[in-house]
């Protein structure tokens, strides 16, 4: 089996599952309980928080545990909007955000906020000049993803942050779900106020995420309740999940040190093997993230293609996992190229440090075979 769908989700590390099981069975206490079992659970939660803070080069008090990327993005965007609507009701985001950002903004639009969606160029990047033009007196939030989940396009987060530092009323949120562990981001130096990550994208478990909230940032909670996570995210803490996430992040960051070159080599091999083949158009920018390669086979139904590859034990996806069942064209590819046929026929290959070079070799061969076969059948 060749699993090339790591941007949809990754396979949890066995060590991560081990920790999750052990914490769940042996340290099951509620961190808020006064007794020793509670204190032990609290200790684990604190340790997890500190380890994550150290790995991301932020403070422990800035780590807020959530249920994943979707919640993190919703909490950041709606929370910032509701807490700061007194200062203004204008929000800037991009045309290529993940649904959990895009639709959160849409929700705010229906609730009295004004949203500007920045376009991207053929490399999937926004233009800083567009951003400057979009900023108004009543702008309170800019939300931009670091690595795009469909194409791997990387936004100039540090430059955006520098630019925004001149506007003290504007909070800066970054969806870093696809970037963490693959494309380095210095949260502090980039002037970021809010930053989302999700455990299952780096071999942690589904249902665990972290939202970085810079100390002193004003956001409203989405949940009312027992005041956990400094009142910003009520609900009994998922201690086992927090520990699992801390471990997954540590292992991933270690792999990043040694594995990044391999990842780039695999992508390079795929790129060269596919680019040369007639009938394939590559959508990812050359300077994109090292783990995502997106291409179109205009004229072929991508769903059919995915299933055909699956018969050979190769797992890839059409568009982002959440929209693949809706059969809609890729919003990102549409925004980059404005070509419907291209946006309707996309295939995404996404890698992790567990993939190997010879897998890429095989995939290139099988993709070519499959395209040839399908083109015969469909014509």
């Amino acid at each position, binding site marked *: 089996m060749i699993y090339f769908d790591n941007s949809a989700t990754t396979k949890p590390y066995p060590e991560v599952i081990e920790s999750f099981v052990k914490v769940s069975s042996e340290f099951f206490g509620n961190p808020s309980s006064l007794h020793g079992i509670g204190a032990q659970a609290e200790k*684990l939660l604190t*340790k*997890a928080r*500190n380890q994550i803070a150290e790995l991301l080069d932020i403070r*422990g008090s800035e780590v807020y545990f959530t249920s994943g990327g979707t919640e993190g993005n919703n909490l950041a965007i709606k929370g910032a909007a509701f807490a700061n609507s007194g200062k203004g009701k204008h929000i800037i985001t991009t045309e290529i955000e993940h649904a959990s950002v895009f639709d959160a903004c849409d929700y705010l639009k229906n609730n009295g906020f004004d949203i500007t969606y920045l376009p991207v160029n053929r490399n999937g990047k926004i233009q800083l000049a567009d951003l400057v033009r979009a900023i108004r007196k009543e702008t309170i939030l800019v939300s931009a993803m670091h690595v795009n989940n469909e194409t791997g396009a990387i936004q100039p987060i540090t430059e955006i942050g520098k630019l925004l530092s001149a506007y003290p009323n504007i909070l800066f949120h970054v969806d870093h779900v696809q970037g963490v562990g693959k494309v380095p981001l210095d949260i502090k130096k980039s002037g970021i106020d809010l930053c989302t990550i999700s455990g299952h994208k780096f071999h942690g478990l589904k249902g665990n995420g972290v939202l970085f909230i810079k100390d002193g940032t004003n956001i409203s909670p989405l949940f009312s309740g027992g005041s956990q996570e400094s009142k910003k995210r009520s609900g009994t803490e998922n201690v086992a999940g927090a520990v699992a996430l801390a471990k997954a992040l*540590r292992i991933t960051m270690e792999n990043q040190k040694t594995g990044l070159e391999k990842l780039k080599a695999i992508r390079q091999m795929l790129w060269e093997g596919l680019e040369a083949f007639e009938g394939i158009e590559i959508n990812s920018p050359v300077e994109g993230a090292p783990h995502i390669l997106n291409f179109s086979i205009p004229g072929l139904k991508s769903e059919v293609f995915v299933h055909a590859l699956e018969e050979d034990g190769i797992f890839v996806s059409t568009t982002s996992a959440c929209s693949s069942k809706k059969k809609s064209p890729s919003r990102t590819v549409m925004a980059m190229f404005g070509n419907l046929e291209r946006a309707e026929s996309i295939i995404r290959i996404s890698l992790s440090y567990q993939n190997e070079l010879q897998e890429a070799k095989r995939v290139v061969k099988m993709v070519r075979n499959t395209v040839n076969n399908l083109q015969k059948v469909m014509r």
Partner: protein
Amino acid sequence: MEFDHIIIRYGEISTKKRNRKGFVDKLKANIRRVLEEFENAKLSASRDRMYILLNGEDHKEILNLLKGVFGIQSLSPALKIDRDIEELKNAVLFYFNQLSRQVATFKITAKRADKDFPYNTDELNHILGGHLLKNTEGITVDVKNPDFNLRVEVRKEAVYLTGEVIQGAGGLPLGSSGKAMLMLSGGIDSPVAGFLSMKRGLEIECIHFYSPPFTSERSRQKAVDLAGKLAEVSGKIKLHIVPFTDIQLLIQKQIPENYTMTTTRRMMLKVADKIMEKQQGMAIITGESLGQVASQTLNSMYAINEVTNTPVLRPLIAMDKLDIIELARGYDTLEISNRPYEDCCTVFTPATPKTKPRRDKVSFYESFVDFDELVNEAVNKVETITINHKQQKDLGASDEMEDLF
């Protein structure tokens, strides 16, 4: 381009004539400890400066760590360049671009120890200054009072570039002033008192009073975590945890309520005094600030201090609470201190403690009770743990917990 060495200047020690060698040796040892993880870095000393030869180690990381070492006045990173004018020009620009703060004006001070070099100092100042002006924006030359004075030193073997002066932590080298015991509650003040004492060269050990079941494991953990913060300065630190329940119960039973707090403080001081003697310290440090609470009025201190003639150092005595909080934030202890658990001082605080207790009265009340035996017992049952900065992140976690991460 790589940095070659870091210059370390020590201000106040240079003026302390007699103890100079002791001071410098302590400072050297403290710097060596910081450098431990940088295998290639070498420390050497001359009369009033030290040098760290980097041998490829990251100068930024080392500078950052050195900024926390007490006894250092200032630091400057230096470049070593081949004797080639083009390389020198590049190096000047490189040095300028990596400055940690913005500057508006500069000057160049060239020195030529080796007269064979084809350019004299005026020519060097001119060429290098011109190169900087051409390749940067918004800076001008000011030879009288520049923000940044770039020093260029031409020697036989190479040319050295330096000039950025980074402020050090100041104070005296840790351990150069002797040893004292810090009474560490879980509050905001005592850790700050600890940092300020270390800044003046004191080596410290911490004493924490623990009264289970009236205070929880978590409040003890607070003290451990705070001591861990102090250990970041000293590498490691001792924490003496005193079982204090029996003494507190006896006080509650035998002493009139409005004097229980005064007696409690006196007993703590007695215990601390005995631990200090064992550990061969010479002072006790507290986080008291005049008038902050009932036990910190002058009357209270007068009544409490009676039990010892050991110097009781109170670095915060004249500080306002808000200033102390600011310091605690800077030392990164505020968050730990603000955790909401009871400590032994809060649980037994009487409703109306005396703000003006009298020495004669408190002695009179205590004269009917035999505290000595319990005091000795408490001292004998002290649990001493050594907190190592390197392991400190894993504080209190068992090995079994360790594997989970």
